[in-house]
């Protein structure tokens, strides 16, 4: 059981502003406050939460772009938080990152070929120039770019294509695990779908493990096998995506799901919506961190911190004192209601875009 875990976080804590010098005596920001999780080999694991919940910090700690204040990260059984030098380079080869913003994460002065070759120079210095060129061409093909794109500069590409370049860079070193921090949220819907499909294909074909950070619940539901919901530096609920989405046990997860604009028109059930905003991570409330916004909060929640524990029905883990007794809100239907007409046209569209032959019945002037 244990060996199918590729990445493990054990009680990871990351505070900012603890080592403040004499100039800055700002408050300590508790960005990640004790997170434990396991990512299994080959799965797509998602971390979801609103801005300021610490999900990006957690991703950077998992990547060792930041060192945790306390706690441990294990990758393939190796401790990540303390390694240095050659060992760290090996880790970087096995674990890669896709950044959110395809506009600022690529050097505008480098051609695509150089951008993609750069990680190869570091992680595979033994390759000859010709071999490296072939590998770059292969990587570009893999992410759906053409070989002639290699000599162009990032500004010549659209957002979706730039994100593909970023993915090619991440794939160059042959990683086992890729962490994507909001990899599709800067993209338009139609382009976003292309990149989501690409990531799905890659993880299946290359046996990659993906860790996806996102705030878009539709994207998460679509892509991930398991999901962790974060609120103010802590995981409040974690489990199989299907379970968490159909039977959310934490009031915050329920609120998040209820807040997704539904394709079925205005939601009628407002019992799960939360009021107010997330408190500052520099001064988190005591007890359950969600109690200030929770519609079900009681006195116990203000003093005692709930621990992540398996729900009674054993489905997944939740950190709420009253998870078992809460009334389930009415959530939007899992599948939006669609008319027969719409369904038929979607099928027609899908068939046509996926390589079907289109014949026109009415207009004979088709060239």
């Amino acid at each position, binding site marked *: 059981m244990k060996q199918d875990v590729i990445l493990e976080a054990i009680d990871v804590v990351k505070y900012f502003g603890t080592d403040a010098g004499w100039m800055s005596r700002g408050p300590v920001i508790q960005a990640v406050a004790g997170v434990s999780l396991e990512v299994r080999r080959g799965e797509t694991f998602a971390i979801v939460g*609103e*801005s300021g919940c610490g999900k990006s910090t957690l991703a950077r700690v998992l990547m060792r772009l930041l060192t945790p204040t306390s706690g441990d990260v294990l990758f393939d059984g190796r401790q990540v938080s303390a390694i240095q030098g050659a060992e760290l380079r090996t880790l970087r080869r096995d674990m890669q990152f896709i950044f959110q913003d395809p506009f600022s994460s690529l050097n505008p002065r480098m051609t695509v070929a150089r951008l993609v070759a750069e990680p190869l120079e570091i992680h595979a210095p033994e390759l000859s120039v010709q071999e490296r060129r072939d590998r770059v061409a292969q990587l570009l093909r893999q992410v759906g770019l053409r070989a002639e794109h290699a000599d162009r500069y990032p500004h010549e590409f*659209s957002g979706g*294509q730039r994100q593909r370049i970023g993915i090619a860079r991440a794939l160059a070193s042959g990683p086992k695990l890729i962490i994507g921090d909001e990899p599709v949220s800067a993209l*338009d*819907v*139609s*382009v*976003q*779908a*292309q990149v989501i*499909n690409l990531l*799905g294909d890659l993880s299946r074909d290359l046996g990659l493990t993906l860790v996806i950070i996102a705030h878009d619940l*539709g*994207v998460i*539901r*679509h*892509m991930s096998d398991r999901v962790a919901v974060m609120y103010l530096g802590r995981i409040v609920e974690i489990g199989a*995506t299907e379970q968490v989405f159909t039977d959310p046990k934490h009031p915050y997860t329920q609120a*998040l799901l*209820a*807040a*997704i*604009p*539904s*394709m*079925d*028109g*205005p939601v009628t059930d407002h019992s799960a*919506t*939360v009021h107010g*905003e997330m408190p500052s991570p520099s001064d988190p409330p005591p007890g359950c961190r969600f109690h200030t916004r929770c519609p079900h909060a009681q006195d116990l929640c203000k003093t005692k911190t709930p621990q992540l524990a398996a729900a009674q029905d054993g489905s997944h883990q939740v950190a709420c004192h009253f998870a078992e007794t809460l009334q389930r809100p009415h959530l*939007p*239907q*899992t*599948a*939006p209601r*669609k*008319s027969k007409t*719409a369904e*038929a*046209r*979607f099928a*027609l*569209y*899908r068939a*046509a*875009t*996926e390589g*079907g*032959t*289109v*014949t*026109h*019945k*009415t*207009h004979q*002037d*088709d*060239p």
Partner: protein
Amino acid sequence: MPKDAKDLQISPQEPPGSCAMELAGLSLRFRGQPNDVVDDVSLSAKSGEVLCVVGESGCGKSVTVMALMGLLPPDSSIISSGNLKVGDKEVDLRHDTLPRAMRGSRVAMVFQEPMTSLNPAFRIGDQICETIIRHSGVLRREALSRAEEMLQRVGIANPSQRLFEYPHQLSGGMRQRVMIAMALANDPQVLIADEPTTALDVTIQAQILDLIRDLRDTTGMSTIMITHDLGVVAEIADRVAVMYGGQVVEQGPVREVFDNPQHPYTIGLMSAMPGLDRPGERLAIVPGTVPTIANMPEGCRFRTRCAFAAGICAQRPPLSEIAPQHDVACHFAPLEDSVEVTG
């Protein structure tokens, strides 16, 4: 009071169902560009109605509302046609803009970025008061109490204290509420909101959408909301207009368009949404990317990405009614009658 404000004061109670705002045939291009960025766009909103304009980046949705508010720099944009009617005031956009007395009072706008559209150097209260004093000429004290009332109305706790705070002291959601309060301060008949929730988290977005819905119901104002999120459209719109490449390709009552999508682009957008159904399956895509304005094809601008395109698509399809109030610009609508897919 500004000198032209008086003759614009018409009764706020328009007969229900009349068009509070009507934009007809707007075409505009930027200097130096060969093609129009907005090509013959007509939009209208009745009082008490929310019209959503949906489309991806570069489809011209923001430029359209900037043009109708008169916010485009005249030396870089050329409007070749376009008529705007607000209430009984008619403006030829080619050489005129909406009178200043109407902008910010009868027609108000909420911008996308609540972080950048408030002036960081002035208190919230002063910024709201400015628009009130500018348009109604009341004294500052009166304006302040009106500002406080507005903050209360958009759901800001402690409004009397918030009036004297600076934008940096507020969170994103609160700043967006302040923007809305400012837009509503003069009881507009038309509210134009450019992606008002895009920068916000989903729980805060739900709160803002609730607020806009409440305001529509209580004030009867008409709202034109720009968004790229079909979920938001379903949540709040009465009618929807889908834009692609500077043209309206489909428009109609929201339920009708979602149940009976006609344009291949609308169908593509809807099926590309990663959603709650069919997790894990490959998403349908809209192939390729939006061409730049200079490379826009003649005729139907979507044809370079459309799986159903044929020779006839080099001629621009007219926006024609396919069902009651439901217009689509596609030669092949309805699809199942005109095309067959095999293989």
